């Protein structure tokens, strides 16, 4: 009988090869190409190639007036449309030293948090689908409709809101707004534990995410990873807490911080943030002060000469608007610091030596929106 030779896996070497993941891969959530260097199914290097939907928004803004710029910003991170609009509005208001009415601050903050919930719901269902749990997709989209209906009733749009204008908001809230939001909160408090039951406690899901793709706190800071992704690593980077704007100074809320920095922690942190968003809305919804919904602004808005920077917290992290003005009605230069851009480029750092299926889990918990990266 021939002798059976036992071969360990270390002896089997294959050549490194390159695989294009994307630009049309379902788990990249848009047109992102990852050039992955593999040996077998072990990832050795990931090089993100972006720019497939680069639309030159920064260049376009140089030919537009300030109110027109707002309409472009919600095409970048379309899931945080209202926060992006608000960032430009706040930047203009700060530059002109306009104080908006209290009512506007409350309305904007409630919209911020509703938008964050809608975004996290979509993230929850889409990343569930990335990991092979299709049921989550239907649950998440079903519940997101409630928020979009509330948006539609007040401002007429569901995704690209354009609700903020320099000096205030475009319309007053719909008479049904408060009752509908309160009904939604009541309903969603019952639904959130269902989300946990469906995925968070699932052993297959936990095995695929726990300990996978660990990002340390030092790396999170060095790579500028913000938002829930950065906070899962323990990087305290919540702009709402550190540099409060709108109605955030008036309310009490916790900045959720994780310790592990793995995919499961990123997942858990966003689930916790949804609870926190509900608390924030509850503190504000009954206390919206009476008053104007906008201050009177000049027909043609001209910013004083100088440079202005405004940071807000979107659903993905820190969004910054940097406006250089030369005193004309068009800005001289506008730069958008988008959270997805900084977050994406850590992927090579943390996906190394994981399997290609884990790369999908890491991408899912990073919550990337590609137009936000490409701009």
């Amino acid at each position, binding site marked *: 009988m021939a002798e059976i030779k036992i071969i360990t896996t270390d002896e089997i070497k294959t050549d490194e090869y390159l695989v294009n993941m994307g630009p049309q891969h379902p788990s990249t959530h848009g047109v992102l190409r990852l050039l992955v260097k593999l040996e077998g199914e072990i990832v050795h290097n990931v090089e993100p190639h972006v*720019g497939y939907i680069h639309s030159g928004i920064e*260049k376009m803004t140089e030919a537009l007036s300030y109110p027109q710029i707002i309409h472009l910003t919600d095409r970048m991170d379309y899931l945080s449309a209202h926060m992006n609009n608000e960032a430009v509005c706040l930047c203009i208001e700060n530059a002109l030293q306009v104080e908006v009415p209290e009512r506007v601050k409350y309305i904007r903050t409630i919209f911020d948090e509703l938008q964050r919930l809608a975004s996290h719901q979509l993230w929850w269902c889409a990343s569930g689908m990335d990991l092979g749990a299709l049921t989550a997709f239907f649950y998440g989209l079903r519940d997101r409709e409630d928020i979009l209906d509330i948006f539609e009733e007040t401002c007429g749009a569901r995704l690209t809101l354009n609700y903020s204008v320099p000096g205030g908001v475009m319309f007053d809230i719909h008479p049904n707004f408060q009752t509908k939001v309160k009904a939604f909160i009541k309903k969603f408090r019952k639904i959130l534990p269902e989300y946990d039951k469906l995925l968070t406690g699932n052993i297959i899901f936990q095995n695929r995410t726990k300990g996978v793709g660990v990002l340390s706190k030092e790396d999170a800071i060095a790579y500028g990873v913000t938002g829930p992704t950065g906070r899962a690593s323990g990087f305290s*980077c919540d702009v709402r807490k550190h540099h409060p704007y709108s109605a955030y100074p008036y309310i009490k809320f916790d900045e959720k911080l994780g310790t592990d920095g793995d995919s499961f922690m990123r997942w858990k942190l966003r689930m916790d943030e949804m609870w926190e968003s509900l608390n924030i809305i509850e503190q504000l919804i009954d206390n919206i002060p009476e008053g104007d919904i906008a201050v009177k602004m000049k027909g043609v808005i001209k910013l004083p000469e100088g440079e202005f920077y405004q940071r807000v917290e979107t659903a993905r992290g820190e969004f*910054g608007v940097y406006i250089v003005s030369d005193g004309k009605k068009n800005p001289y*230069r506008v*730069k958008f610091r988008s959270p997805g*851009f900084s977050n994406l*480029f850590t992927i090579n750092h943390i996906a190394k030596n994981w399997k290609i299926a884990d790369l999908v889990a890491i991408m899912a918990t990073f919550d990337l929106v590609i137009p936000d990266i490409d701009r």
Partner: protein
Amino acid sequence: MTNEQLIEKLSAANPDAVVKQGSQYPEITVAHDKMHAFMQNLKSDASLAFDYLVCESGVDYPAFIQVVYHLESTTHQHFIVVKTTTENREIAVLDTVSDIWPTAEFHEDEIFDLLGITFTNHPHLRRLFLDETWGFPLRKDFHDDIHVVER
């Protein structure tokens, strides 16, 4: 550290640099040849500890191209704006800061792509969004006959 203390400390340590209080944050303009050492100090000095590069942007001016760094310290929570300019628009070369803050690597890729600043010692400088046939669109003299219609 308050903004006043920050301005005082930085102007004492860097007599050549222009330090002033901007509309929101302290602003420091450093010469391009001293920029890298200055940045290194900003991160390593324990009382400054600027460990988080928030944003790096390029602005094209008639005589030079400026790069603006928004920096924050996660330990002290203070924030500054550092500016540096290239020698002129033809020789647009600057030192990279990606060895200090890794995130700068990709912000610099973007600036190279859209404004045409070459960063020396950059590990992997490449055009991020556009292909080689494009010029540098964010430069003010960029002219695109095909895609832009003049009014």
